[in-house]
């Protein structure tokens, strides 16, 4: 269980999350949603142990992240930043193997498994500069998977992906959750959260304004209140679409 207890976060001297308490359970996908500037990415950084709380604490299975070694935390939590810039034109296999750094081993079996899970075997020798956007997203997720973390925290991993690649990546994340890993992702697309998440945290101006199953946390009237738009869900459960207007 990944738990935030009365969490307050400050960045650049400004409060970005205030008094947030939430528990994220493994074995499912938790979506973190909210308008721009709501504090989603900051919360994800804190859940990954990369942003020191100004107040409160984040703990993993009862152990405060601040009390864990950097290596122990890195072995337990895999963090996928939003479209990271890759400094060097390394091969796919080399990039995926970076996920083994916290373990200080080559982890050939784990790297192979990650490549296979995301169908990247044929691309293993390809330089990352020659990947399409969808391939690149899969490679970056494979990098996290090769570290075999108990938790995968991803900041908008589906942004800038076309529909096919987006659905494929969602399927991979669901498979991770089904295998018992914890998955928490920041999302802007509320329909994705509604259709694929097991649990949703709704943030607004640094505060947790709702949490629960998607149908409850993302009720149309709450979307209207938080995002300031008229909204209505259409379609059947699992295939819902959001109709919006002002």
């Amino acid at each position: 269980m990944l738990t935030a207890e009365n969490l307050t976060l400050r960045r650049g001297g400004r409060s970005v999350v205030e008094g947030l308490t939430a528990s994220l359970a493994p074995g499912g996908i938790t979506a973190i949603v909210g308008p721009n500037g709501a504090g989603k990415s900051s919360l994800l950084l804190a859940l990954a142990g990369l942003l020191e709380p100004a107040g409160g604490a984040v703990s993993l299975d009862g152990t405060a992240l601040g009390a864990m070694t950097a290596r122990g935390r890195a072995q337990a939590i895999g963090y996928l930043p939003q479209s990271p810039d890759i400094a060097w034109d390394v091969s796919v296999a080399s990039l995926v193997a970076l996920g083994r750094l916290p373990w200080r081993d080559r982890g050939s079996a784990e790297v192979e498994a990650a490549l296979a899970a995301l169908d990247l075997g044929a691309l293993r020798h390809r330089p990352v500069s020659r990947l399409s956007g969808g391939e690149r997203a899969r490679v970056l997720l494979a990098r996290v998977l090769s570290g075999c973390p108990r938790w995968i925290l991803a900041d908008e991993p589906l942004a800038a992906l076309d529909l096919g690649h987006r659905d494929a990546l969602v399927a991979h994340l669901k498979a991770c959750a089904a295998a018992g890993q914890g998955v928490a992702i920041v999302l802007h697309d509320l329909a994705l959260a509604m259709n694929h998440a097991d649990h949703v945290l709704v943030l607004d101006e640094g505060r947790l304004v709702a949490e629960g199953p998607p149908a409850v946390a993302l009720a149309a009237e709450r979307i209207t209140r938080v995002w300031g738009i008229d909204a209505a869900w259409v379609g059947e459960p699992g295939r819902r679409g959001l109709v919006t207007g002002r």
Partner: protein
Amino acid sequence: MNRAAIVFAALLAVLAVLSLLAGRVWIAPFGDGPQNAALILAELRLPRAVLAVVIGAGLGAGGAAMQGYLRNPLADPGLFGIAPMAALGAVASFWVAPLLPAALAAWSLPVMALTGAALGMGGLALIAGRTTSDGAGGAGGGIALFTLAGLMLASLAGALTALAITLAPNPFALSEIVLWLNGALTDRSWREVGIAAPLTVAGIGVLALAAKSLDALTLGEDAARSLGVDPRRLLGLLVIGIGLTVGAGVAVAGIIGFVGLIVPHLVRPLTDRLPSSLILPSALAGACLVLAADSIVRVLPFVTELRLGIALSLIGAPFFGWLLVRMRRGRL
């Protein structure tokens, strides 16, 4: 040892032999040589070749580490404060030396150059090592601060060095300072090897400790921290490693630029391009470059030997321009 290391080790072996044989007096490997061939080899060419290898190795490894840390293929370890501070220390020694007893004066230049390098390292660590309490500083703040602090130190050291030149105590000192700043291995002996070699080996060893953390930086600063990289430890290793390798080089040979910029580009195509796979091969390639350049300036038919620092700048500046063109075309 990866493919690049094997290639450059083999090249270094060949260049080392050629460097010992080439010079104003050519020493034939077989057959009759000049009468004092053994003396020339043991007291002139061998220490000079070893010093070229040591300095080149330090600058090459420093360049690979610096480019990895800054995630920038145009970075050069000489640009970020430590080399200019070492040079400032060395220039200051031209004032201090006349005031010291002869035995101490002989050591004032390398000691003050290393002191300058140490002050540069301390300044960099002090400024760039500060992180903000909200965590946004992390490695990110560290790298940005490192760059800015390095440029500030370099500017300050450059200005003070220029001031020192302007106020040179006598024309002889002025000439010595200017010549020394241009970098050379002329007339260096085993004494300089004894100063530079242990510091450079230690520096390369420290940089090697940072190698895996530099690999993690490939993915950006947040991702690196999520992989367990401690930004303060990494900064500390970088500052100490660069300080030792670059400081040692400046202390015994003056400013020799562009090696750290050029060498990683020669090595990168032969590796998987991760910083960890570049450090040892870059040390070997740096040794090759400085050794080759020093051998060439020795045999050029000039009345006065071309300064090594000038020769490498003549090669390095167009190379830098070529890198910029490649970068503009998105091929870097």
